[in-house]
């Protein structure tokens, strides 16, 4: 294809011709997928005769060698990983693009394009895994699938149409980057927003199926729909899962982008490249961390709705055979908190002027470590009789005191506050505010931190002296105190540091290389955590396909123990990263030898050149 070039500001930008061959190849894939999806929709049993014929089908078929459950589990987890990535990344990609558009900084436009490129490469794999999952359900769990179809058939069409809309919008967004630039940039940003709206709509439709399996609604005792499908969609856990998954997708997308940047940083040949990917890694971590801070609150909401739907299910989840799962979750989240903060502290070393804030690191590390230890303390343990006698019961006399929700809620809120403090210090590391009201502003900020911590600790201690039903309500006050502090501190911080004096530019690319392994640790840990939470969500149904409605009478009706689940999660997560690596490598093949693609000059980041280092 012919290449045209033009000068844009002080950067030389190459514009490539429209890659017709690539587009055609992807369009063929899309048509194949859509054809398959429509064929499946067309043959779904909808009339009475077909339903009768379906009743003669076996309830289950056995997937060769691995068994049906393992096959569905592995493909579903992989599909969810990819889907979370392609739905999460565009959310912040469009925000970054809008920032670039409004500020005129080319590096944001480059980053946004880089992010969408990653999404784009994973798009067809997500669709193919989704189709594969559908085939597994239809083929190996026909009775279950027939039942779900009897409830949700109208939503299948909505899903297919949304998928069409999402695909074409994302294609236009990606390939129209140059075409819709300049005065037409607002249309391009609009396409990004639109693709996010379609993507979120796809998410909420699919969530209605999976949440119905957990907390069925809108059906009579025989399991048939009582009225419209909306009652089944709008079940107890639908909205909490929508919110939880949306936030988690952003975290996930951020960590994967961070890991991608880390990978490129470690393999970079030039200082300029290192600087670029150091900056990208920081942005990835910043996005992940920002969303991660509010994720526990969404988790509380989901947990509360599970209890509201069915106490037995809630208690089984937290205190039954799954109780140890939450200890593992606490460890993983502890790793995420410590890792994110450690990355920020390492990052401060490349910021001139940050020395002022190093004294805060040891106390923050102590709070995070102690918080981590308390959060991972089990309340009651499965012990032998001798061990129980030695401890004086199933609760350890000292550690058992920290294993209750009062202690755990308190420390997680303190960890969130500490992480936020890390971020605030990082943000102001090379700035000295010049406003006349700085002292007052700082005092109010510290007071906000102290007040929030005070409220959190007060309700944490008070929780030991009240009934559980009252104690549950305390977590709301703790969360509100933390959120209020975050909002207040930022509301002061932004104007206070506007026009601040700088102590020097951030030396991007000079961060310690081992910091990049922290980014990879975060991505791996969060992906593994997603697998674990998927197991929790599915496992609390126990021997039910649809809780209390459609029983699992297959050979796989037992819910496996955590060890088995962890092994499956590990293997699938490994497969996911192997596939991601392959897809990214494949996506990068077309760019070999070209420094810029689709008109996107790789920006020069501060610290990327010797002459730019202050």
């Amino acid at each position, binding site marked *: 294809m012919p290449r045209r070039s033009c000068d844009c500001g002080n950067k030389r930008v190459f514009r490539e011709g429209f890659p017709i061959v690539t587009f055609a190849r992807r369009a063929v894939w899309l048509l194949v997928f859509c054809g398959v999806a429509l064929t499946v929709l067309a043959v779904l049993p909808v009339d009475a005769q077909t339903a009768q014929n379906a009743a*003669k089908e076996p309830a289950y078929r056995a997937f060769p060698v691995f068994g049906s459950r393992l096959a569905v589990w592995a493909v579903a987890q992989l599909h969810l990983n990819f889907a979370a990535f392609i739905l999460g990344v565009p959310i912040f990609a469009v925000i970054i693009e809008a920032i670039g558009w409004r500020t005129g900084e080319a590096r944001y436009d480059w980053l946004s394009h880089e992010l969408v490129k990653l999404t784009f490469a994973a798009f067809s794999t997500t669709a193919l895994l989704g189709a594969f999952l559908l085939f597994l359900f239809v083929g190996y769990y026909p009775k279950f699938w027939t039942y779900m179809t009897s409830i949700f058939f109208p939503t299948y069409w909505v899903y297919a149409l949304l998928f069409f809309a999402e695909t074409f919008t994302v294609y236009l967004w990606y390939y129209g980057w140059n075409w819709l630039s300049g005065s037409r940039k607002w249309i391009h940003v609009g396409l990004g927003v639109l693709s996010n709206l379609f993507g979120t709509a796809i998410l909420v439709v699919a969530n209605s199926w999976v949440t119905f399996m957990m907390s069925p609604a809108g059906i009579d005792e025989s399991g048939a729909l009582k009225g419209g499908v909306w009652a089944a969609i709008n079940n107890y856990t639908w909205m909490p899962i929508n919110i939880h998954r949306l936030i988690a997708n952003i975290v996930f997308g951020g960590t994967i982008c961070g890991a991608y940047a880390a990978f490129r940083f470690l393999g970079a040949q030039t200082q300029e490249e290192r600087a670029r990917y150091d900056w990208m890694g920081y942005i990835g971590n910043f996005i992940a961390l920002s969303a991660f801070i509010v994720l526990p609150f969404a988790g509380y909401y989901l947990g509360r709705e599970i209890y509201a739907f069915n*106490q037995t299910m809630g208690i089984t989840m937290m205190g*039954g055979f799954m109780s140890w799962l939450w200890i593992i979750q606490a460890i993983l989240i502890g790793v995420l908190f410590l890792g994110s903060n450690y990355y920020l502290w390492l990052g401060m070393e490349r910021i001139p002027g940050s020395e002022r804030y190093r004294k805060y690191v040891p106390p923050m590390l102590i709070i995070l470590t102690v918080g981590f230890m308390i959060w991972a303390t089990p309340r009651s343990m499965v012990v032998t009789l001798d061990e129980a006698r030695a401890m004086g019961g199933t609760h350890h006399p000292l550690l058992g005191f920290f294993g209750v929700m009062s202690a755990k809620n308190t420390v997680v809120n303190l960890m969130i506050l500490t992480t936020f403090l890390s971020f605030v210090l990082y943000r102001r590391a090379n700035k000295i505010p010049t406003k006349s009201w700085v002292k007052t502003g700082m005092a109010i900020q510290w007071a906000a931190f102290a007040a929030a911590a005070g409220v959190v600790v007060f309700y944490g201690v008070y929780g030991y002296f009240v009934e559980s039903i009252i104690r549950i309500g305390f977590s709301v006050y703790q969360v509100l105190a933390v959120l209020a502090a975050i909002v207040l501190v930022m509301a002061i911080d932004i104007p206070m540091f506007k026009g601040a004096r700088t102590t020097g530019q951030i030396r991007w690319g000079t961060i310690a290389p081992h910091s990049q392994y922290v980014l*990879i640790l975060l991505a791996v840990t969060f992906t593994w955590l997603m697998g674990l939470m998927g197991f929790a969500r599915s496992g609390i149904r126990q021997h039910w396909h649809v809780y209390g*409605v459609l029983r699992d009478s297959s050979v796989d009706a*037992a819910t496996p123990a955590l060890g088995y689940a*962890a092994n499956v999660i590990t293997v699938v997560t490994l497969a996911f990263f192997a596939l991601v690596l392959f897809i990214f490598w494949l996506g990068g093949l077309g760019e070999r030898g070209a420094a810029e693609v689709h008109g996107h000059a790789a920006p020069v980041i501060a610290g990327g050149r010797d002459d730019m280092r202050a």
Partner: protein
Amino acid sequence: MRVPVVVRVGVFAVLVMGSYAMFANSIPQIESKPPQELSLEGGNVTPAQLVKAGEEIFHTKGTCEICHRIGQKGTRAPDLAGIGARAAKTKPGMSAKAYILESLLQPAAYIVEGYPPIMPAVDKPPIALNRSEVWALTAFLESLGGNVDVTLNDVPATVGAGSGGAGAVAELKIPGDPKAGEAVFQGKGTCIACHKAGKIGAAQVGPDLSQIAKIQTPDYIMKKILDPKGAGTVANFPPGVMPQDFGTRLTSKEYVDLLAFLLTLK
């Protein structure tokens, strides 16, 4: 020698995930198994056996222990110590067994003061106890300080109907003899002429039944024997080959034995 980035990152990722998996394997491994069905109808069962069966249900399938304790105050639900004696005095004019049964089947009918109305009906999904199990559980609760006088007739006949949920198939315990059923399969039933069943038979006229209990529901197998045409023909096999007269050719015992044998083929 410089190790490529992809290898370094890959090894690091494997080590991280391996450590998580190793920890998950080091803690107590608890599998949640689907509950077994208990059937006492028509059998001779002593009160002691009934109480023992009820105690097991209390700790397992009934999931009562999630909220209730015996001899210990709970925050979610009342202490059940002495419930057998207390139940007779809770609602005037209502016997202990009637009160306990009402509490199990219609928990919202009477809420003990100071506790939230969170108890589910035990004969409905997801707990879904059947009639025999409700009988045994009632007997166990009566035994906690009271006299066991509940009979199967005290438990409404409708209890447990549809407890398996829509389209669900509760695990059946066919009272037949699988060994005798195997003999029917090979002998009077002449099934072996067309079907393979594990190590028995080799014919391929009809579908291989070696895993029939794994891939089919008991109600389908029952129907297929009595009404092969009505149950439909399995894909890729000729229709109308399976005899239609097993319902009259086999005795009840032979039919039940044959079923018991087929349900062992997993």
